[in-house]
């Protein structure tokens, strides 16, 4: 059973379902010999079989916060970090109108591999350079967001979490428009995205919470000149994470002082901003690229800045590469909270609990740097094998990218990830 996780009242839900139905209906139509330029539908897919090992046994490493478990505490070797299987149906209804359905199976927040709809949209091409998509589309915050799951198309085992983990949401329910034009001998593409999303993430064992965005608006600009690409993105949205409501409401019960803390850290309909820039140079024989991103949530989730630089060199079918990435927290990792001393003893205890919970949340944000060395081997047509070693150093007091922290886990530590994966497209 496919699952569409959407806000029940989301206006774009119907559109996503419509797009999915359209793609299915057309897909089931017998393939008739038609105008050779426009196939009625095409089926394709991609997948990754991966194994990742973490030297840190008291916490899990996951590639996104939406996975239930990973490598480390759940098992030193894990297939769940990078493995994915996806199928895509593209229906070309007329030369201008097409529909796309992409279904992805990867580990979910509840530990299952139940497939979910990653994209389901209808695309109308007003001209070859101006198109609009409606339904579930990509949320293109970073250079490789749209193809993050297509391991075969990426040079690394996985995109650097220091940047791609700043906002790990990859799909948007809404509309986007893309306009491409020539700037001298360069090609410039402007893309505008609007909509929202709701994604579930695990909280402890057997529980989940969700992050919602409404009123999302983003604009990105991509400039391509030969092998050189530069990109910038700005996106804002109103975010809500209900998980923190009990804590925030608890502070509100403590009068003006508590209200002030609740207003500072609450994440209910909170305006968040994302900025990102990136550039790559890929003449074929080698590649060099880098990205910088910053997210400001002005809430308990914090504000973070991340960046990476990466380069690789092609030696026949082998492409060794190296990446340095770093993410830092720009917001405070602690807060004095309520003045417990000024409260009557009956309120001092709950106040100190609230303070402790707030500080645990503030300190759990990722701050880390990573040196990655790896290699890709294009071993046969449509198939590549990659290995990567990541040496991670968590900033003092931070668990870095690690989750599911167990007793005995120490913040600010170092650990090594060893990953191997086989990517394929069909």
């Amino acid at each position, binding site marked *: 059973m496919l699952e569409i996780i959407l806000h029940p009242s989301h206006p774009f839900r119907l559109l996503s379902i419509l797009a999915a139905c359209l793609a299915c209906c057309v897909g089931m139509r017998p393939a008739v010999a038609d105008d050779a330029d426009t196939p009625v539908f095409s089926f394709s897919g991609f997948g990754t079989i991966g194994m990742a090992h973490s030297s840190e046994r008291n916490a899990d490493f996951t590639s996104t916060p939406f996975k239930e478990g990973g490598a480390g505490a759940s098992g030193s070797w894990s297939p769940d970090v990078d493995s994915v299987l996806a199928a895509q149906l593209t229906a070309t209804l007329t030369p201008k109108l097409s529909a796309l359905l992409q279904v992805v199976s990867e580990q979910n927040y509840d530990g299952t591999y139940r497939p979910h709809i990653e994209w389901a949209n209808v695309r109308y091409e007003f001209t070859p350079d101006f198109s609009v998509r409606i339904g579930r589309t990509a949320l293109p915050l970073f250079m490789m967001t749209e193809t993050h799951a297509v391991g075969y198309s990426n040079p690394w085992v996985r995109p650097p979490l220091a940047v791609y983990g700043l906002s790990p949401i990859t799909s948007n329910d809404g509309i986007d428009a893309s306009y491409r034009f020539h700037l001298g001998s360069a090609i410039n593409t402007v893309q505008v995205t609007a909509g929202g999303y709701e994604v579930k993430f695990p909280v402890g064992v057997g529980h989940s919470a969700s992050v919602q965005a409404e009123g999302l608006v983003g604009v990105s600009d991509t400039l391509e000149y030969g092998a050189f690409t530069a990109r910038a993105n700005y996106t804002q949205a109103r975010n809500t994470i209900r998980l923190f409501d009990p804590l925030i409401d608890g502070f509100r019960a403590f009068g003006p002082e508590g209200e002030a803390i609740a207003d500072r850290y609450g994440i209910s309909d909170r305006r968040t901003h994302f900025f990102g820039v990136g550039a790559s140079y890929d003449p074929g024989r080698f590649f060099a690229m880098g990205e910088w991103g910053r997210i400001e949530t002005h809430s308990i989730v914090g504000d973070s800045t991340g960046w990476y630089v990466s380069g690789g060199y092609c030696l026949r079918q082998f492409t060794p590469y190296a990446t340095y990435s770093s993410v830092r927290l720009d917001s405070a990792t602690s807060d004095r909270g309520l003045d417990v001393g000024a409260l009557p003893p009956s309120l001092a205890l709950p106040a100190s609990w609230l303070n402790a919970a707030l500080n645990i949340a503030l300190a759990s944000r990722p701050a880390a740097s990573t040196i990655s060395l790896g290699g890709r081997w294009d071993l046969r*047509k449509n198939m590549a094998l990659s290995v990567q070693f990541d040496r991670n150093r968590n900033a003092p007091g931070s668990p870095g990218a690690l989750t599911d922290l167990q007793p005995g886990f120490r913040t600010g530590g170092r650990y090594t990830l060893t990953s191997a994966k086989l990517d394929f497209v069909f």
Partner: protein
Amino acid sequence: MKRAAPPSSLALMAMLSTGLLLGGHAACASGEVVAVVATGNPVATLTRNEVVAIFLGKASRFPDGSQTVPVDQPEGSDARDASYLLYAGKSAAQLKAHWSKIIFTGRGQPPKDVSNSAEVRKFVASNPHAIGYIEKAFVDSTVRVVLTQ
């Protein structure tokens, strides 16, 4: 008399030489490959960047604003592998990775392909928007060269 190599070692040699061709970035194509349009197409010449942008799906128009219909040589052919390597710097695997990005975001499909240089010439000659690339020996009066290496 020299014995012919058994089929299996021939296949192995073919695989190895294909591998060398794909991996090495030297312009070691069998014959020179040129980009062509129909004789009636008003486009005079194109730069390497312009041709590469069209074949990689980054540009959909000729510099004069008219629409392009690129046509490819078949996957695995020398003309295709050598041309992408020479002009775009992309091996067959890198080209596949490039198209994977576009296909799996629903932004397009790779150019359609036909079976050889003669078929490319025929396709280009019959379509004023078409652009293809063929071995230089196949150039005749029906097509016009817009880019040579």
